[in-house]
């Protein structure tokens, strides 16, 4: 066990990278997901179709394949070389947007139609009504589902280790390979991911309790 101790800080540094990655992908995926959801619910048939195809594609193929596809194929067909971290954020944002858009669409549809009507009757412009009246109520209904998506994102983020991003997972593997101490090197990431997920869950239920004012 001793030979693992000097490597612990090295593994812990991965926390920042994993968190930064999850936060970036989550935020971009969320914003994108709102856009895709609005396209699905909007008047334009063409946009709705595109949004539907987008969702079907990203839910219908393995995330790890999307990731390596973006990482290896984009540099071959375009002049851009992508950093592994950036490729990861692109893949995870696009992927989570597909799932989040479905959650948000259901959330918007769960808001009482009367809320749209009241906003309309008061001449509140569509996007303003969405942002300030409909979405805040929708988010409240779908908070558990969004929380789930966040937890999935956090756990699945370990996949980016395959393209060489030095997140918690990758660092654990490096230490394991260096020290041959698999138990130590892989148990630390296991505990780290578990604790992070637990913290996210606890934060989630706190927010949920705070938002339950109007029921």
């Amino acid at each position, binding site marked *: 066990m001793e030979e693992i101790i000097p490597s612990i800080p090295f593994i812990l540094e991965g926390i920042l990278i994993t968190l930064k990655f999850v936060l970036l992908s989550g935020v971009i995926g969320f914003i994108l997901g709102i856009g895709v959801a609005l396209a699905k619910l909007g008047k334009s048939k063409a946009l709705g179709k595109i949004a539907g195809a987008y969702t079907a594609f990203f839910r219908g193929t393995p995330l790890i394949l999307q990731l390596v596809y973006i990482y290896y194929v984009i540099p071959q067909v375009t002049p851009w070389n992508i950093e592994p971290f950036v490729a990861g954020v692109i893949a995870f944002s696009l992927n989570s947007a597909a799932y989040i858009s479905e959650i948000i669409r259901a959330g918007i549809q769960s808001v009482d139609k009367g809320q749209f*009507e*009241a906003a309309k009757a008061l001449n509140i412009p569509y996007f303003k009504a969405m942002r300030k009246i409909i979405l805040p109520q929708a988010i409240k209904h779908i908070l558990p589902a969004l929380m789930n998506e966040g937890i999935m994102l956090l756990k699945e983020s370990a996949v980016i280790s395959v393209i060489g991003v030095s997140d918690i997972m990758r660092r654990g593997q490096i230490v394991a390979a260096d020290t041959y101490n698999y138990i130590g090197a892989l148990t630390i990431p296991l505990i780290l991911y578990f604790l992070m997920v637990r913290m996210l869950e606890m934060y989630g239920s706190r927010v949920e309790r705070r938002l339950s004012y109007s029921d």
Partner: protein
Amino acid sequence: MIKVNQLSKTFKKMPVLNNISTEINKKEVVAVIGPSGSGKSTFLRCLNGLEQPTEGQVYIDGTQLNEQNVTQIREKTGMVFQHFHLFPHMTVLQNITFAPMETHGKSKKEAEENAMKLLETVGLSDKANSYPNQLSGGQKQRVAIARALAMHPEIMLFDEPTSALDPEMVKEVLDVMKQLASTGMTMVIVTHEMAFAREVADRIIFLDQGAVVEETTPIQFFNTPSTERAQSFLQKVL
């Protein structure tokens, strides 16, 4: 002020309104009554463009309501719904000031001053900072009326404003509406409150199966209804 010309509306081939023509004058209070499913709500919603007529036209102040000018024309109307539709995540004050600030660009101060005045007229000054779920049904509906009035409409549309209320709360809402009528507001009220319609309305429009079956003064309608359909309806509700 409002002119409805040969208005028809069908939902997926089902006729709901059938060739309705009428005119509503400035400061007039018109009660729309009729059996459930007769198209009262649909008629009302055509007046502020929440529904588009399948055929016929609605004119507000001489301008035909169409898809291009619907926001402009809607400026002139306020609507009150059976189920209030207050915004649950906003306080009473925010409910009232939101649209004036966001659509009319009013300053917060100006919007709040006006909102407080309106809350006073509906008797709810002390509830400004409450959330809708802390109010009774009657209080909610009075807030909804204040919210609509905050946009300074020339016409107020009411769709069964007291139907979702416990009996003891009906009066407080009707009183506010009476008071509003006495200020000269043009009002179109869909209601099942016959006594109220008789007392406050200048005219009754009786709808049945999407058509205007009777259109007359309250006295005539309630005392000597001329059609059989109105007679049998009144027998059931009075």
